[in-house]
């Protein structure tokens, strides 16, 4: 087998979110000398990052395998007046450097964008490399905006939002080679406002990250059987698009959430909070990783095993109708 290819269940056009970050940043750094790029052992020889480091040795920083320093030092540079974008594995950034993110970024309100790569189980590296708690930790921090990008285009749109309005922000992206959920980037992306990808009144499926793609695929498949699913891409976990959740609960009466994350404290529980606090006692189901360390393997296989891929959603929708 010549190299590994992600086995997503539909093959849409692909773009690597991880590559789109430096491409977007490079353009922005040309225009704004205050932007800095911080990575932890993240400049691969021959990559765009390497070109950037050669071009701007004082503005592209690699702290080595040292996430506390990555985040702390980026926050320090931000205090000096810089706009900082940090990028590394989400599991290492959000777990190892939680304290620096909470205090140096969120509490000190420094303009630092934390880009967590390999979100969920997409690294394929097993529980040491899975980011299963990153949304949980990040959504619990005051002052923090939390975006879980559904595809590379959306990651770029979120990053541009940060560059236009620098503030503490976390953008979670998958490993790479993920299909595009949106054919173009002109669908009116706005941080804090969800996207209704498919409309329907029978049931609502709210996904985030790759969960958005699965939700959309499931809605399209079920439409062929006359089941009208409302598929919502909840790309921003914080601030949460509360109105859309309330509206969906009232209009469809059933909600399923889908996330590549432990399901006790991520998108699903964010949505559950809204339902409970608004007295909306509807049928509700969370799909994601249960309270266990995920099985070994590549993402598509794990998503299927735990039933939060397209087929898993279709099954649960039929059970709930």
């Amino acid at each position, binding site marked *: 087998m010549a190299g590994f290819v992600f086995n997503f269940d539909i093959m849409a056009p692909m773009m690597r979110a991880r590559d789109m970050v430096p491409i977007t940043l490079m353009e922005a750094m040309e225009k704004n*000398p*205050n932007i*800095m790029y911080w990575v932890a052992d993240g400049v691969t020889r021959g990559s765009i990052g390497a070109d950037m480091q050669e071009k701007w040795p*004082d*503005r592209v*920083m690699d*702290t*080595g395998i*040292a996430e*506390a*320093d990555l*985040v*702390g*030092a*980026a*926050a*320090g*540079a*931000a*205090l*000096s*007046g*810089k706009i900082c974008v940090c990028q590394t594995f989400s599991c290492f950034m959000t777990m190892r450097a939680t*304290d*620096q993110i909470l*205090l*140096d970024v969120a*509490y*000190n*309100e420094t303009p630092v964008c934390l880009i967590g790569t390999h979100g969920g189980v997409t690294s394929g590296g097993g529980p040491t490399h899975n980011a299963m708690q990153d949304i949980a930790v990040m959504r619990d921090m005051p002052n923090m905006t939390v975006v879980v990008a559904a595809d590379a285009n959306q990651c770029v749109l979120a990053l541009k939002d940060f560059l236009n309005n620098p503030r503490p922000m976390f953008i979670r992206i998958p490993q790479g080679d993920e299909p595009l959920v949106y054919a173009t980037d002109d669908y009116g992306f706005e941080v804090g406002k969800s996207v209704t990808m498919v409309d329907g009144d029978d049931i609502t499926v709210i996904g985030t990250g790759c969960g958005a793609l699965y939700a959309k695929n499931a809605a399209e498949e079920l439409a062929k059987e006359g089941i009208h699913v409302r598929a919502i891409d909840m790309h921003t976990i914080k601030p949460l698009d509360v109105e859309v959740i309330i509206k969906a609960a009232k209009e469809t009466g059933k909600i399923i959430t889908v996330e590549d994350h432990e399901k006790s404290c991520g998108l699903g529980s964010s949505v559950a909070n809204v339902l409970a606090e608004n007295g909306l006692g509807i049928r509700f189901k969370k799909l994601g990783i249960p309270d266990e360390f995920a099985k070994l393997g590549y993402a598509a296989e794990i998503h299927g095993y735990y039933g939060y891929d397209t087929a898993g959603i279709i099954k649960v929708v039929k059970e709930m109708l």
Partner: protein
Amino acid sequence: MSVDMQLVKELENKATDIRKMMIDYVQHVGVAHLGGPLSCLDVSVALYYHYMNWEPKDFKAPGRDRFILSKGHNADLLYNIFCDMGLFSKEEIYSEYNHLNGRFGQHPNRFYLPMFEVSAGSLGHGLPLATGYAVGARASGDNYRVFCMTGDGELDEGSNWEALMFAAKQQLGNLILIVDKNQIMGTGFTEVVMPLLSLEDKFRSFGWDVLTVKDGNDMIQVCEALEQLPERNCQSKKKPLAIIFNTIKGYGVSYMENTPSWHLGSVDDEKAVEAYASIESHRKYGKE
């Protein structure tokens, strides 16, 4: 190295005044950090009143030297220094200290009190922040120096050693680490709780220049060390400088000295009288 004795006298007199203010302060606010503030008081006074390019009238001046307080519990000291400099009154501190709508917490918040460069308190944060600050200054072409003050106990935190490596790699000649080596941490002596062994050897092996001040509570020795501070040049690519000040926790108040339990405490009227007399008796070069 010769130092200006007039300056030494002035700074020591100021340090003595601030020590006395600390006693009045703790009597009014009830409980405050005392051991640590008293140990690094002399170098803090020398930096703020003379060696740093920092003016209280213009504490947000773009070219000011930056002081990143990593041992956030020393806010208790800086409140008194800033008060002495006229940035706020004693009454303001005493009425607002650790109250719901007050600006003065046990640890500093930079939004409530913008003369603090960072909101601090959790240990092991200052040095990574300071290194990044120095990197940012260089990238912007800003010729100020970045000072970071840590305790010695907090050097147990691994984040410091990540930052030490990064600062050496970046050759941050605009970064100065000030270590208040009072040898006591929250519950006991550093060499018992977690031996640091030779900080000099550790820092040197991490690629830093090191100066050691044998008695960091002696104003002549404090000034001798600070006379060797690097110039204000952000492009200066050389080893960053660590200055280790060997100090006595609780210095100046005999019954607090070298006693771990005085990390945080309160002082009654009788103890206050004793403290004032002790502080006065520690004066070496100042008022007759």
